[in-house]
Structures are given as C-alpha cells and as structure tokens.
C-alpha cells in the first residue's frame, strides 16, 4: 500500500447500477481492484459482473467488510450517499460526482470534523496506487508502479502528467485527484503530509489551478514540513478574472487566486514550478538527484535523527535510516524538518 489504497482495499461502489457506476465498477475490477460490493437502494440482491448489490452501505459493509466506498450517484443524491458511508464508519470515501451544491459540501465538511472517515472529492477522478488498486475513473494503463506521488485538482490534466511521468520512466506510488470544487474532503496539505510520511514515495508532483488558497497553504507546509522534492504545475495562467473555468473552484475572485500568484508562492518556497506539463519529469528528476547528493553528504558528515512518523520502520535497516535522513530543500541553511502524519 502506498497511501490510502492498495492491495488490502475492499471497495464498495455506491450507485453501482447507474451508467457510470456499472461501467467503472467493471473497469476497476478489471484493473485488479477488489470490488466487493455495490449499493443501489432497491436493487439489493442483484449482481453486476459478479459483484453483489445491496440496499444499504451498512448491510454491504456487514456482509463484505468493505473499507473503501466510491460514490457515483447523481449530484442531487451525493451528499446523502456520503453521509450514509460516513455513518457506516467507512474509513475512506471517494466521491467522483460533479455538481454538488456548495451548501451540501459545507454541511459535509462540518459533519466530517472529528469523525474518522476521510473523504476525497467530490468532483474528482479518484485515486490509484498503480499495480495494486484503482478507485475511480482514471485509465489504468497510463500508470506504472513507482515512487512518485501525485496530487491534483484536475482529472484529465492529471492523466496528461501521469502519461509524461510514465514515458519518462518515473512510476507512481499513488496518484490522487482531490477534485475541482471549492470545498473538498482532502486538500493538498493533507495529501502532502501523507506522501512525506510514505516510505514508498520519493518525490511529489502537485497540480494546482486558479482559485482558492490551497496551493498557498501547500507552499507554506512544504517550507516547514516537507523534505521530499516537490514540483508544481498550476493551470489557468491564461484564465480571465471572475469567470468560472469549468471547475466550480476554478475562479479568480476579487483578484485573488491567480495562477501567477500561486506559481510565485511556490517559487518562494523553493518548489520548482513547471511552465508546461512536459517540463515536470525533468524538474522532478533534478530535484530527486539533488536530494540524493545531499543524502550522501549527511551520511559522511554526521548524524541527525529523523523525527518523522515512519522512522520506526526505517530504523529496521541502518542503510534505510541513513537514506531517509532529513535534509532541507532550501540552501544554504540546513534545518531538520518534522513531518506531521
């Protein structure tokens, strides 16, 4: 398992009998995801491609021990589907649906606080740990297993970047689409923390776009708590102000949230920003190589204890420990950064 989904994930499909639900349930299963159940109220007892359908999430979980839900229900019903999965105490819910009213997500966000369910989305393509588990609508074949973590607000732009990485020989640990809406269950900062703590991820690609301040928050987190190399790309440099560019969250409001501002903020944080997607693999390789050089320096020069979570696992092998020693990305001052799980 890289982050969040892997071979142990047992996936339940809410809205499995709908057009998109049934198509993607089959696609996920073909990829190798363990799709153990589907839920469509009123269709309990049916079967889609051998996947048993239940009337409720609660029943599906009880009968199949599903631990991930992926939601394909229409926008008007999506909040209810999310609530149902949260109340059934599913650890992870991935909402693909686009078009949820913002008010519905305000209520979901408030409800999730203090609860253990993690929500990804809505209006997202899902997430995939290549070679292990696909939860969503992305084309599996463009991905290849590897050690690059990718987090993005987009859908097809994510595929474009994955395609570039795969062709450059840079496989992916986990690719997560966090969605294009103004309020989402999991933000950049949440995902960066997970990648930083993941011993199967060496480098991170962040794909942002206009609107909101998640990219700025990510840059601030990276400055203080992320030691792994990050490369960013921000879509919407040519977007006119005040217009919603497809995604509900992609809007420059009152002059704030421009691509240019976000790019500048990342540069200030020491994060290289690709001007076009095809620059990403080169910038990432350079960042990883730089870190590798620093790693050698630290091993020769002296010891600094890693403080991050996951360090216990690393201590199993001395070689591994040395390799994971924290180094700073900002030259020339070297500081030890803590990562927070």
């Amino acid at each position, binding site marked *: 398992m890289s982050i969040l989904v892997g071979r142990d994930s047992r996936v339940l499909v809410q809205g499995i009998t709908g057009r998109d639900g049934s198509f993607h349930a089959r696609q996920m299963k073909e990829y190798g995801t363990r799709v153990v159940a589907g839920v469509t109220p009123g269709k309990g007892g049916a079967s889609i491609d051998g996947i048993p359908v239940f009337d409720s999430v609660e029943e599906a979980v009880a009968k199949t021990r599903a631990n991930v839900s992926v939601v394909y229900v229409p926008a008007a019903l999506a909040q209810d589907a999310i609530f149902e999965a949260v109340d059934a105490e599913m650890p992870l819910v991935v909402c693909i649906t686009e078009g949820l009213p913002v008010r519905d997500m305000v209520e979901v966000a408030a409800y999730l606080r203090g609860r253990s369910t993690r929500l990804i989305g809505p209006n997202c393509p899902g997430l995939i740990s290549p070679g292990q588990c696909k939860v969503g609508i992305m*084309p599996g074949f463009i991905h290849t297993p590897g050690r690059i973590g990718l987090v993005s607000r987009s*859908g*097809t732009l994510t595929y474009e970047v994955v*395609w570039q990485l795969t062709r450059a020989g840079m496989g992916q640990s986990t690719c997560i689409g966090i969605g*294009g809406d103004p309020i989402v269950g999991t933000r950049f900062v949440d995902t960066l923390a997970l990648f930083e703590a993941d011993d199967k991820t060496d480098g991170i690609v962040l794909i942002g776009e206009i609107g909101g301040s998640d990219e700025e928050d990510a840059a601030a987190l990276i400055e203080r708590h992320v030691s792994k190399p990050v490369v960013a790309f921000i879509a919407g440099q040519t977007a006119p102000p005040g217009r919603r*560019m*497809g995604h509900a969250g992609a809007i420059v409001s009152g002059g704030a949230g421009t691509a240019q501002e976000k790019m500048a903020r990342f540069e200030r944080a020491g994060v290289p920003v690709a001007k*076009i997607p095809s620059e990403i693999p080169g910038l990432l390789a350079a960042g990883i190589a730089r870190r590798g050089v620093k790693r050698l320096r630290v091993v020769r020069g002296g010891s600094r204890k890693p403080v991050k979570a996951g360090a216990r696992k690393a201590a199993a092998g001395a070689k591994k420990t040395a390799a994971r020693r924290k180094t700073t990305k900002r030259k020339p001052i070297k500081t030890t950064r803590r990562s927070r799980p």
Partner: protein
Amino acid sequence: MNLHEYQGKEILRAAGIPVPPGEVAGTVAEAIAIADRLGYPAVVKAQVLTGGRGKAGGVKVVQSAEELAREAGRILGMEIRGHKVHRVLVTPSAAIEREYYAGIVLDRKGEAPVLMASPAGGVDIEEVARTTPEKILRLLIDGRGLPAYRARAAARFLDPRWEIQRALVPVLIRLAAVYHENDASLAEINPLVVTAEKEVCALDAKVVIDDNALDRHPDLAALRDLTAEDPGEVEARDSGLSYVRLDGGTIGCVVNGAGLAMATMDLIQYYGGKPANFLDIGGSSNPDKVTAAMKILTRDARVRAVLFNIFGGITRGDDVARGLIAALDRMKVKIPIVIRLTGTNEKEARDLLGARGMTALSDMDEAVRAVIARAAEAA
C-alpha cells in the same frame, strides 16, 4: 449565476430586509411612468451584470421628468464594460446619513460562509480589504446560521448607536438566511444605508446563485437574463458544455476536462499562439456534444484553427472520433482541425479517424505547435 440588482432586491425584500421602492423600466416612457408614481428626486440605475456602473455614468439622480427622460434615454442602450443596458431601475432618491457594507460569501479555507461587515460602505470592499482591513469584521457562519448575539456584535461594529444596531440586527440575520435558503455564493448589500430618518435599508443588492444548486431552485433559474450572456456561452450550457470566450484569440480549443482545458490554453500561449476560448466537453462520451462544440467554434469568426485535445478516462476516444466525424459530415468546416487523442479506446479512435483521412497526434506539445502553425498559415 449572477442576478441583477432589481432581482437581488426582490429576494431581500421577500425575506423581510428593507428595500426602497423601485421598478424596472425598459423604455423612457416606462421610466417616467414609474417616477410619476414614486416621486422625485429619483435615481435611475442601469441594470447590468457588472460593477462600476456609477463610474461609467450608469447611475444618475434626477429632479424632474425632463431630466429623467434625458438620463434614462442615455443610459438605456449604453454599454458598460461590454454589457449592454436593456433595463433601468427607477427608485426614489434617499437622504443618506451613513453607508455600511454587509455581505456573505463562501470562505473556502474556513469551509463555511462568512459574513463581512464594514462601516466603510458605498465603496469597493476589496479596496477596503487591501488598505484598511481592520475596518472589516469577518464572522464565519456555522450550522446554526447567524445567532442574534453574533448579529448584535456585527451591528455594534457597524454603528455606535443602539437604536441603529437594533434595526441592523434583523437585516444581518435575514441576509444570512437569504444566503442559505437560496444557495447563494454571494449575497451583498453595498451600501446598507442609514437614512436621514434613521431607517436602515439596502440601497443595492448583489446576489449570485451557486450554479450547482440551480436544479433545486427552478424559480431562481428562471431569473437568468439570457440577453446578458454571450450567445456561445448560452448555447454551450444548453448542450452540457462549459465554454468561456477569451478576448483576442485565434485558436479554438475543444478539450475534455477543465484542468486540461486550462492547461491547453496556457500551452497555446506558451508556444506563441492566442487561445480563443475555454471549452470543456466534460467527462461523458457523447458525440452530440462534439457536434455542439464544433458549431460554437466555427461560428466564431476569429477562430482560424481548432485543436481537439482529448485524454480519455470516462471519455472514450472512439466516441469523440465518431462525434467529430459526424460533426464534419453535417457541417462544411473550412478551418483546419488538429486532433490530439490519447487514452481509453485510443486505438479504435485512430482507426476511425484514419478511415476518414484524418490523423490524430498523441503528444500535447506537438499538437499545440501544429495548430499554431496551421492558424498562421490560414491567416
């Protein structure tokens, strides 16, 4: 979806927020008839979905029918920041003592609506936020709505007098209710005035409805002013596409996915071209959408070449290919089309297009450079 001032005021009025009397006129004669009833001095205000109406001369106080005829005649039909004035609001002029600001907008970071209140009303609130942010009180609104005690705190911030605060409190509470019940993304009163008679009322109203919520508010959806929108954008929306016209562009794009569509525009600019539009045909495979997209783009006289950039996930490449072929069969498309197709059913798509003599590139940078070159040739 933006609403006009007169529409926003009607929503506020129905919610119990004091709004001055006023009616909408589409002709000078109608304007005069309204002012005859409501009295002079009157204010005639352009009804357009853009700010800066006052600065552009779209808001005038008039003392008589002659003056109203002159000003209404000038304002009706004028263009303010690219928006044509089809209607004016005629309202009695109020004697203003104070101008405040009260507005509710989504705080994305706080994941909740936020009430912004400022005694610096009647001016651009973004300017206030930039220069004197301490003059703005921000209250994040939670699931309770706006409790009275918090509304009182906001009222105290606005005005030092208890009798005015007492009048402001229900306005703020009802504004929060308007925002919530109408699924607004913005509900703004600027200025929220105290009149010379010590009465509180909303002299302007800007209400924007969350596009994603229109399905559950058919009455609000019906308020949409189609004459205020770009015809291409109206048609796009009816066809289930997302389309934004860009100024000064020559290269049309059709892309599946908003992020990729933005990146395509960015890439066109990066390589020296000028994108003419944003167009997202969305994530479901529907050949009719491709046809609709081609219709909108070929009607745009500025467009010299079109780039199709399709990366298949939910979108099946062969459906896009069929749609493209069907569209070109129905229309005589004279401008060059560059196709980039990658992803689900890519091979089937290439075979279909190949059978019609069309090639699809698979590299995005290459496709962008190709369409820029084709557009230059066509110039």
